[in-house]
Structure formats: C-alpha cells, structure tokens
C-alpha cells in the first residue's frame, strides 16, 4: 500500500552543532510530484539524501508507506531501500566508468538477485537505442547517460523517486523527455516523486505543488 514517503521533524547535516536542516517535515504522496526549490546551501540535497535513506539524520524519522525507517545507508533494510529510486545532478559521477550502459542499468537487478532480462524494456522506456547500450559512460553525452541513470532508477519499480537537480546538465529537449518518462511511470504505478531543483520555472510546470526552502526554514 502506497501511503507516502514522509520526513517527520528531520534535523540533519554534517556537524551536530550546525545542522543544515532543523525540524523539517514534508510528505511525498503517492502519485504526486512534490517540488522543492531553494538556493544552494539551503539543505535541499541533504533532505534528498535523508529521504533516499542515504544519510542518517540527527533527529526525526522517515516513514515509508507508514512504516518508520530503522536504518540508513548500508543499515537500511533492503525491502525499504529498494522502494526508493534516486537520480543525481551529475550522471558522470553516478555511473561506474568501467561499466557499459547495459551493465549499469542491470546493476540493481543483479544486486538483488533478479533476472536482468528487463534491460531492453527499460532502455526503450528512456529512449536509448541498442547501439548506445554497449558503450561506456565516456562514449555518450550527459543527456544519454542521465537517460541510463533513469532506467537504472526504475529497474526495481520503486514506489518513490527522489530527483536531486536531475535536469541541471540537460538541454531543454532531454529535460522534457525525462520528465515525461517519469510522469508516464507515475500514471502506471502511482509512484510519488520528490523533484528538487533551483529552476522554479521548471518546478512550476512539473510539480503538483512547490515548497521553497530558504535559510530561514533550514538550519539556524
């Protein structure tokens, strides 16, 4: 049952004396897109990492479909970890340079002991042609690599997708293409999306509602 990905009174950061986020709450409802805007340093990426279970908050809880999350990073239970897909700003830093795109897209399937036979279907979903799948990251453009990252993020059919500045490196056409892929996926599966960007024009047209983090609501 998809009831939402909820951050409840989260205080997080990298130094307990100076948290980046203080007592912050938000809920990403299933089927909806929650837009989060704000300048750099306002804690957007920290929140993305907390909600993707990649960073342990100092205080507060993350609830996944009503169940509190008990561990973060490698301590996150596999069943919870695989319910959330993540996309980062820099696709080049998110893919092992030694892997072909095909291997990269299949990585989550292999890591979870599932057959890797869905790769072609996933590649088609993000409009990657077969001749691109045999290439390595340095042989494709940023836009093509981000398409592969989206295919990889959708491989385990996550209930939630955290997109942290996913479109920054992309041109207008690729941005529109990837947002449309995510919207189609949401229509089919009822997934919830957290869309983080400093581009408020983009969020106004992408998200169902937008919240702006500023330095007053975050940190001290």
């Amino acid at each position, binding site marked *: 049952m998809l009831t939402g990905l909820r951050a409840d009174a989260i205080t997080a950061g990298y130094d307990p004396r100076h948290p980046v986020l203080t007592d912050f709450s938000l809920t990403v409802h299933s089927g909806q897109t929650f837009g989060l805007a704000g*300048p*750099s*340093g306002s804690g957007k990426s920290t929140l993305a990492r907390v909600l993707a279970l990649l960073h342990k908050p100092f205080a507060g809880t993350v609830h996944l479909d009503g169940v509190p999350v008990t561990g973060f990073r490698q301590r996150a239970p596999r069943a919870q970890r695989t319910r959330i897909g993540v996309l980062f*700003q820099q696709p080049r830093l998110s893919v092992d340079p030694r892997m072909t795109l095909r291997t990269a897209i299949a990585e989550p399937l292999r890591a979870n002991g599932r057959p890797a036979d869905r790769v072609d279907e996933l590649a088609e979903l993000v*409009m990657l*042609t077969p*001749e691109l799948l*045999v*290439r390595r990251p340095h*042989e*494709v*453009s*940023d*836009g*093509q690599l981000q398409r592969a990252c989206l295919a990889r993020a959708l491989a385990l059919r996550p209930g939630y997708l955290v997109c942290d*500045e996913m479109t*920054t*490196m*992309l*041109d*207008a*056409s*690729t*941005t*529109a*293409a990837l*947002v*449309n892929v995510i919207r189609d996926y949401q229509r089919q599966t009822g997934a919830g999306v957290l869309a983080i960007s*400093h*581009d*408020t*024009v*983009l969020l*106004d*047209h*992408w998200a169902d509602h937008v919240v702006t983090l500023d330095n007053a609501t975050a940190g001290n």
Partner: protein
Amino acid sequence: MVNELVLDHLSVRFALPGKFSLPGATVAAVNDVSLRIRPGECVALVGESGCGKTVLANALLGFLPGNAQTSGTATLTGDGPSLDLLTTSDTVLATTVRGRRIGLIPQSPAAHLTPVRTARAQLEEAVRVHHPTDTAPRDHAHRVAARAGLSPDDLDRYPHELSGGMAQRVANALALVGDPWLLIADEPTTGLDRHLVDGLIEEFRRMVADGRAVLLITHDLAAAQRIADRIAVMYAGRIIEIGPTRKVLEVPRHHYSRGLVDALPDRAFTPIPGQPPLLTDLPAGCSFAPRCDQAAPVCAERPTLTDDDHAVACHLPC
C-alpha cells in the same frame, strides 16, 4: 585595425584509433561553421550536449587533442598581428592570444582554480604574467577584483572557502586581467542558483557594454535569451539557424530550433522525438531530417545556410 573573429567553414574531425569500439571511424564534431564576432555583442551558441559546441570553443583556444584534424580558418584580427587560430603554434597562442586577446570563463569555476592557493595568489600571478612591468601587482589585483565585485578580504580565501558566486567572480576577474576583447564562456550558468545566474548575466552585459564580445556556449535557452544579442543554434556540428535572439526564439525558422523552444517548461514542455545522429555516421542530407516531421524527399540533399539577417539551413523552413 578593428577587433574581429571570423570563422570561415571551420570543421573539426577526430580520427578514432582502431582498437576502440568504433574501429577506424571519424567523428565529425564541427562541420563547416562560419561565424563573425565583433566587440560590443554577445553571441550564444546553443544546442544539445554532444553537438560540438565545446569542441568549437576548444578549437579557438588551441585546446584540441592531438588526433583532431581541422579545416577552414578562424581569423583573429585587431590589436596585434592577424592570426589564423587553427594553424598558430601553441607557444604563440599561449604568449599572445590566451588571456590577452581571448579570455576563457570556465564551467564550474571552483574546480578550475588551484585548490592549494588563495584567490589572491592566483590573481596576483595572473597580474605578474600579463603586466610584468607593474610595480604594485597587489594593488592591480585588488582593482581587477573590485571590478568583478570582490572585496580584498574575499581574496584571502582558498577555493573551497568560496561560495559558488564568489568563485565565479574570481574566474571572471582572472579572465579580465589581460584585458581580452573576446571572452568565451563555456556553460557558465550550469548548476548556478537563480540569483547567481542573474549576477553573471549582469556581469556579461557590463563586459559587452565595455566594448568586449562574449561568445556564450550553453544548453540553457533561458539564459541565452537574457544575455545574447544573437543566437546560433547548433545541431550535429553545424549551425542550422542564426539570427537576432528575439527572432530565433519567437519565430524560429528551423524545425529543430522550434522543437528546442517548444521543449521549454513554460512553453509546450514536449521533447523533440528521437535522438541526435551519431557524429561518426551523419546522414548525407539534412542531419535533422530523420527526426523532423516535415521531412520531404528534398531533405536528402544537404541544405545550405541562407545569407540573410536571420539565416536558416532548411529546405522547408517554418
């Protein structure tokens, strides 16, 4: 003599060594680009990633790798001797062109600075190199920094202590030390916040008002719209449309430019179908034809760029 940069049928090709996945192939990264840049204007070169924008900039600065083959000319005239940038030796480029006649504003400025030295040390070094007779390089560095919006205290910081906006200003100051008339900015707005983009755009407008020229390389149409006097749209290594910014964005004549404009979130937010062609295997005719909904038999022949104020390379323009 008037400062001017004239590109005439500039092409860049890369021969791929046989042992890689595309044996013996040639990458046609830049094809037949002709463009004229003069002081007092900002020209934006826009297009998808991988369309050859950055290769073109690198060709002008002499930063191409050894396997690149160039043809055509890129003639730089004005203060100093007239040079073809494609055939000039690296020594001449390094001692008379880079930083002096053409400045570079890099992408991600914080990564471009030396991490182990303060902003002041790097700026003073640039002053000493460009103005060896100046007896007070520190004061000179402060003047350049002030022009870029930095206080002397800011200069005491190391790159990791600079915010994104300050690092950008240090990069701008470094580019201006040698007083070049042409600045090449490669994706300068990528990853910057709204208010930093606003500040940078204001800075570029000031440089143009000072009689410099800016060649802005970007995939960000919204930024190009706010800075550029002219926009050149590049597709698969070719300029397929060039004209005054307002005309290109409001009444695009090439179907690719129209597709890019329609992809903006505040327009139709629809992607252009298909993918750009492989630069190793470009179609013989119009390279956009395989993705174009208006393609006709005539598109099997390569269209040439028209010779008017708002030029387009299309047999059946919008």
